[in-house]
């Protein structure tokens, strides 16, 4: 990443500690114009601190942050050319909607006559132009969210930061706004960093997702790559759902994993060199199939159905095998078993991901 030209935002080996706790560790990424990146992870993973360092609320202990090729670590927030939408929106309670939206322009010393038309334009963009004379406290969460977005966009920032902006909204509204906000930002080609702990939100909105854990980026990739080819055990566990089989590498020509519920084949890239080591074998629900005692699948196991969940076109079933492993399977409605039934599950080893010490083999 020596060449920083062409990137709207570039972080290089950024680290930050609070006292003895290292909350962000060696974080690097670069965003091209218009790209939408989600920082995804559980609370305490360092995603919010990373965002705060980009915004200028915290200073990194080491590493560099560049916005449009200009180093910003030493600049205060107001000189970084950033727009930001906060969790719970942080609209100024003593100002009208119009004053909230126009705040950034007023701080930049623009005259009232210049501010008013731009406030109207950006308010129309996020569909709050009928609310300009109102006070924020009179408005719904969705409306406040739109106003917060307008306040961030009016200054035409180089990058936009979104800090869990949909968290306080109810489900239907949240999904509608996600679609609307994403298409608006795509149209405006605004480079965006989005912090969330909600994987569905990250998967549906992002060009790329940085999955964070313990202050580090575990993997940064497109939603599809994260789902289909997780680089670490944590990513596999955090993105989507699936089943982990823990065990040891078995001997023999073809690699296998010995687990308390049986011995199963592993994909060929797991070499004999890892023989004897502890492994995690991970299976997505789509890779597991209902079969029977004589089924053709190379790996088979029998268990009893513990629960079923209606998913619309399909049914998700939970199968307990010998009370020690829980398999998640998705089946067609017409083939769905009942709770308590004994079923056979089968899978192809090529659909399994294998992790040793948390890393993908």
């Amino acid at each position: 990443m020596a060449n920083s030209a062409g990137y709207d935002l570039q972080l290089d080996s950024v680290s930050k500690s609070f006292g003895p706790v290292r909350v962000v560790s060696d974080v690097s990424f670069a965003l091209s114009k218009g790209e939408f990146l989600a920082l995804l992870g559980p609370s305490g993973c360092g995603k919010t601190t990373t965002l705060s360092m980009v915004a200028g609320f915290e200073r990194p202990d080491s590493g560099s942050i560049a916005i449009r090729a200009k180093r910003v670590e030493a600049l205060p927030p107001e000189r970084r050319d950033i727009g930001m939408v906060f969790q719970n929106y942080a609209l100024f309670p003593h100002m009208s909607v119009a004053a909230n939206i126009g705040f950034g322009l007023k701080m930049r010393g623009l005259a009232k006559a210049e501010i008013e038309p731009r406030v109207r334009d950006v308010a129309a963009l996020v569909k709050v132009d009928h609310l300009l004379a109102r006070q924020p406290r009179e408005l719904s969460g969705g409306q406040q969210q739109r106003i917060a977005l307008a306040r961030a966009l009016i200054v035409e920032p180089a990058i936009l930061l979104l800090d869990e902006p949909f968290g306080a909204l109810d489900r239907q509204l949240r999904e509608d706004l996600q679609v609307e906000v994403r298409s608006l930002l795509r149209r405006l080609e605004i480079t965006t960093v989005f912090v969330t702990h909600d994987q569905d939100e990250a998967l549906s909105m992002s060009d790329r997702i940085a999955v964070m854990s313990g202050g580090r980026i575990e993997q940064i990739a497109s939603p599809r790559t994260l789902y289909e080819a997780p680089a670490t055990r944590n990513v596999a566990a955090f993105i989507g759902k699936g089943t982990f089989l823990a065990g040891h590498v078995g001997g023999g020509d073809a690699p296998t994993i010995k687990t308390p519920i049986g011995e199963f084949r592993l994909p060929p890239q797991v070499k004999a060199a890892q023989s004897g080591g502890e492994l995690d074998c991970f299976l997505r629900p789509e890779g597991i199939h209902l079969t029977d005692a004589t089924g053709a699948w190379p790996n088979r196991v029998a268990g009893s159905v513990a629960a079923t969940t209606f998913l619309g076109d399909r049914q998700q079933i939970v199968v307990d095998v010998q009370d020690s492993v829980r398999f998640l399977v998705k089946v067609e409605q017409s083939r769905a078993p009942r709770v308590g039934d004994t079923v056979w599950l089968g899978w192809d080893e090529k659909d399994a991901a294998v992790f040793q010490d948390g890393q993908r083999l």
Partner: protein
Amino acid sequence: MQRTSALMRIYAAAIGVLLIFPLAIVTAVSFDPGAYIAFPPSGFSFRWYVEMWSNETIVLAMKNSLIVGIASSAIGTVIAIPAALAIARGGAFAEKVLYPFLLSPFTIPWLVYGLALLFFWSVTGQPLSLGTIVLGHTVIAIPYVLRITLAVLRDMPPNYVRAARISGANPWQAFRYVILPYIRSGVVAGASFAFIVSFTNIPVSLFLTTADNITLPVAIFNYMINNFEPMVAAVSVVQVLMIVVILLITRKIGAVERG
């Protein structure tokens, strides 16, 4: 409309009587035309309300008290706001040293503080003046403004200031356009408390007043030692009315904007 329970009515009546009773007595006495305080009053007249304005000491003391009250609460506010900002930010020095230090006037008996100030000014050779009283009252004004301002400030979501800064406000603009409007009602409440404390203060003023810089409570106190005329009651009623006027004005300033 909410129903008020009988118990609540009795409670309110008891508190009301407790608060208003002494004031009612003083007010009744102030209209007594006689030469001595008596209760019940011997008649009704505005005699003492007229005569008090020809008492030079009382008039001077009223003027002085207004100046001292306004000046000390204003200066105290100017000192307390930045201190509150620093303490709310949570630095170790601000929280562990500055905060207890500025609150210490709450813990020192005012009589002792007044005496200490007298010694201090005599050691420094500074003659007592309105200025020395203003300084003394400023010190006791600070904790009132500080406590209330800090309570409001700590209640303010930190994202307000962050939102202001990221939108382009420098630290001063963030204070001027976001923090100050948010804490205004608290600041005004604290400042009006500080004014009342100054306006009614005897223990500190007692040691710092001379014939020239005498304040109203000290003047009333001195007057009562030598006289037993109802004029002192009339002056007291005027003092109460002045405080009421100040409170009405500050309530208007401190009201949160609506609409």
